[in-house]
């Protein structure tokens, strides 16, 4: 099936007709180069920045007092830090899925959303990375996680999933940053050539590394980009798999299951697409990018959410089934405890948010309605956060010995840190849309019919 029949089948085009190389370039680069920052932008950035400051305050106080200011106690030693870490890492996964996996699958509609989805990945991974570091209790010793020579001559313990996590997440952050930057280089060259101000020209000039669009350069560039996509694909699948090993390798009931890796990866993509939509819907409206981020993108993202949401639902079903069929009384109790225990309300909310409400995406009208999608995505993000809360807290709070049962209540410092990272994430997004082209200009040019050549 060629590109054209595919477009007719899917109805809405990837890019509205009437655009040329010039108009695509102008429209995207003008957002960065000429459009003045509005009051609404300053207000939004200001709020996000204040939340970031609140996070820094909470972390500063944590460094002063220690993790005792959080709700974590024995037996629940993981609490918000791990819940938020897993949530943020999961959100990042959609960016890599869009930029790498959809590139390999030749889904050219990804070209208009990959850039900011990748930016979202980077910022989400930065937010995630904060939590394990501050959770170690003595953050000045966090470098012990890396295999660096030290005065005790001892090395990290490579049989531990937590070490695997260090390598998986730091590799993921590095590769995502490289992938994003390399994708930006030709567009930075466009900004360098388009900007009229000497300083911006110099800054974009330095960042663009002197890109000049030579045919030889493009050839190596495309090879490297494709190989990076090929490397990022197994990487992204491995990252959430390794995150799930943090749980699955332990013997705690509710964690020790083989379904965890696939169901974590599906959940990651599920929440990531929800975040992509929550960002894309207001951005395309505010910056008038409906020509580039069309109904087709919304619809496709909604379908991905529907599919991954069903996989997540299957995961819940199998957890319940194995709790009953496995015959292990502790596993069976964990399932019962989820449904009827002290955290039953969040568990039922999780089922409503992740499984029941998203089923409305079967309705075509809602899949193409930006307002409806925005709210459904919000519901999914809440649901996925609750899922991680349930996994971490419910399994830990009642394990094998009744004498060691307990409850977990997050404190205001937990909430301030968590909400603060959302602020940091949004502040980074606000800066990104003003300083860098949020849609890949050169990849948009290749979507235009004029770009096609015959030999």
């Amino acid at each position, binding site marked *: 099936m060629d590109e054209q029949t595919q477009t007719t089948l899917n109805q809405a085009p990837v890019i509205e007709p009437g655009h040329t190389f010039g108009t695509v370039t102008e429209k995207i680069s003008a957002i960065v180069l000429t459009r003045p920052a509005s009051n609404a932008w300053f207000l939004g950035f200001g709020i996000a920045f204040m939340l970031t400051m609140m996070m820094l305050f909470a972390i500063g106080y944590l460094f002063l007092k220690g993790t005792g200011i959080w709700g974590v106690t024995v037996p629940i030693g993981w609490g918000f830090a791990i819940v938020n870490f897993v949530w943020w890492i999961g959100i990042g996964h959609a960016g890599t899925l869009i930029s790498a996996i959809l590139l390999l699958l030749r889904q050219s509609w990804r070209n208009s959303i990959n850039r900011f989805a990748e930016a979202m990945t980077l910022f989400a991974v930065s937010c995630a990375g904060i939590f394990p570091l501050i959770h170690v209790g003595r953050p000045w010793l966090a470098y012990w996680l890396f295999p660096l020579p030290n005065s005790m001559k001892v*090395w990290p313990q490579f049989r531990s999933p937590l070490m*695997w996590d260090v390598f998986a997440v730091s590799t993921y952050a590095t*590769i995502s940053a490289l992938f994003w930057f390399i994708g930006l280089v030709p567009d930075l060259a466009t900004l360098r050539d*388009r900007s009229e101000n000497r300083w911006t020209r110099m800054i974009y000039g330095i960042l663009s590394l*002197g890109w000049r*669009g030579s045919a030889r350069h493009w050839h*190596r560039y495309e090879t490297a980009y494709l190989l990076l996509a090929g490397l990022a694909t197994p990487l992204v699948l491995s990252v959430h798999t390794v995150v799930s090993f943090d749980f699955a390798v332990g013997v705690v009931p509710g964690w020790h299951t083989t379904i965890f890796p696939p169901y974590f990866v599906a959940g990651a993509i599920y929440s990531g697409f929800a975040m992509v939509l929550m960002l894309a819907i207001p951005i395309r409206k505010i910056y008038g990018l409906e020509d580039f981020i069309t109904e087709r993108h919304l619809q496709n993202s909604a379908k991905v959410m529907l599919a991954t949401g069903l996989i997540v639902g299957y995961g819940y079903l199998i957890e319940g089934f194995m709790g009953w069929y496995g015959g292990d009384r502790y596993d069976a109790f964990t399932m019962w405890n989820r449904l009827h225990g002290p955290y039953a309300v969040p568990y039922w909310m999780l089922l409503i948010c992740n499984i029941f409400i998203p089923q409305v995406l079967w309705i075509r009208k809602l899949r193409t309605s930006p307002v409806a999608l925005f709210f459904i995505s919000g519901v999914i993000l809440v649901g996925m956060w609750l899922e991680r809360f349930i996994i971490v807290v419910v399994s830990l709070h009642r394990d094998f010995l009744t004498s060691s049962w307990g409850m977990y209540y997050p404190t205001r410092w937990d909430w301030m840190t968590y909400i603060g990272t959302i602020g940091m994430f949004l502040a980074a997004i606000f800066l990104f849309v003003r300083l860098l082209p949020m849609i890949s200009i050169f990849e948009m040019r*290749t979507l235009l019919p004029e770009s096609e*050549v015959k030999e």
Partner: protein
Amino acid sequence: MKRDPIYGIMAEFDSAQALIDAAKLTHEAGYKKIDAYSPFPIEGLAEEVGFHHDEVPLVVLIGGIIGGLTGYAMQYWMSAVDYPLNIGGKPPHSWPSFIIITFEMTILFAGISAVFGMLALNGLPMPYHPVFNVPRFALASKDRFFLIVFSSDKKYNPAETRRFLESLAPRSVSEVPS
């Protein structure tokens, strides 16, 4: 060796098709040291300007192999040779546990090789380049397509090459000072 004051002669085209046709004709006319510039990658253009050996995949393969070996060797040496610790009764060389970090290191080294290998082979970063001396070249990152014949080409002759490029129906032809 004295440098030629002229780096090459550059022709500007309106479309990707015009550029690829012109590159083909120029190569067939016997010019070997040529290059083409476009605002997006054009399939087959690199072959038309005489580029056939892309070394990036080899660099990535070598990077990946080095990364994998480094990852495994590091874990083996640290856990089984330099400071063996008995943890949970597992053998010091617990190879199944080492596979994940080996995999991650393979990806990390291969990815870094892909990016930096590509940049090094392309001779980037290079903020100044003679082609930027042509004012119209700023459009090469927007919607124009350029073809250059370098003055180092054996067949290069200022007047004749210019005439040849003009015969390809370009939008403009300009000399590139070096």
